[in-house]
C-alpha cells in the first residue's frame, strides 16, 4: 500500500493565504503612490518577499516538507540575495 504521510492543507486555509496575498498586493500598489525616494523600491521588494514567503510556505507546502527542503531553499535564497547585494555594493561605491 502506498502510504502518504503528507498533511492536507484545507480549502479554508488556502483561501486565507490567498486573502493575505491580495491584501499585500493592495498594500504594495497603495504604497507606490507615495514617494519615499530610495526606500520605495526597498519597501516594494520587502512586500514581494513577504508574498513569496506565503506562497512558498503554504501553497508550495514547505510547511509540511522535511526540514532539509527548507534548508536548501534557504541556502538558495541566501546565495541569490548575496549575489544581488554584492552587485549593488559594486555599483554604489564606484
Amino acid at each position, binding site marked *: 500500500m502506498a502510504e502518504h504521510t503528507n498533511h492536507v492543507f484545507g480549502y479554508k486555509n488556502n483561501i486565507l493565504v490567498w486573502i493575505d496575498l491580495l491584501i499585500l*498586493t493592495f498594500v504594495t*500598489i497603495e504604497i507606490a503612490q507615495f*514617494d519615499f525616494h530610495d526606500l520605495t523600491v526597498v519597501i*516594494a521588494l520587502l512586500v514581494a518577499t513577504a508574498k513569496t514567503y506565503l506562497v512558498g510556505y503554504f*501553497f*508550495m507546502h514547505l510547511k509540511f516538507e522535511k526540514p532539509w527542503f527548507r534548508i536548501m531553499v534557504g541556502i538558495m535564497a541566501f546565495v541569490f540575495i548575496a*549575489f544581488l547585494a554584492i552587485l549593488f555594493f559594486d555599483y554604489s561605491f564606484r
Partner: protein
Amino acid sequence: MNAANHTSTSHAGHMIHRDDEGSRMGMWLFLFTEVILFGGLFAVYAVYRFMHPEDFHHASAELSLFFGAANTVILLTSSLTVAMSITAIQKGDKKKSLILLGLTLVFALAFLVNKYFEYSAKIEHGLFPGTEHFFELPHGEAQFFYLYFFMTGLHGLHILVGLIILSFMAVYIMRGTITQDNYTLLENGGLYWHLVDVIWIFLFPLLYLIK
C-alpha cells in the same frame, strides 16, 4: 524494499517502487535553476535602473497599472486554485480537483489574453524595439522596454509551458494516473505554477510601480 520508499502492489501482483519525496526535491532543484535564470535578468535590471533612474521612471509610467494589477490578481487566484486542486485530490475528490485545475487553466489563458492587449498597445505606441519611434527614445527608456519585453516575454513563455503541463495533469487525473494515493505529479506541476507566480510577484512592482 526500502522502508523509506513508497511501495505498492498492483493488481498484477508486482511491486511498484516510488520515491515521492525525492521526486519533489528534484522539482525544487529545477526551480532553483529557474531562479538563477530570472536572477540574471533582475541583476541587469538593477544595474540599468541605477544608471538611468529618471528614464526608468518615465518609461514605467507608460505601462498600464490596471493591466499589471489585474494580472497579479489573476495569477494569485490561479495559484489558489491549483493549491486547492491538490487539496481535493488528497481528499479523494477527483471531480473537484479537475474543476479547480480547469479554473487554473482559464486564469492562465486570461493572463495571456491580458498580455496580448498590453503588448498590442505598446506596439501601437511605437514602444517595441525595432520601430522608428523606438530609436528616438532616450537611452534609458529604450533599455527599460528591452527589459520589459524580454522579462515579461520569458515569463509569458513560462505561463504557456505551465498551461501545457497543467493540461497534462488534468488528463492524468481523468485517466486515473494521478489518484488520492499517488498525486506527486500534480504537486510538481503545482510547484512549477507557483514559481511562475512568484516571478510575477517581483516583476509587477519592479516594472509597473516605479517612483
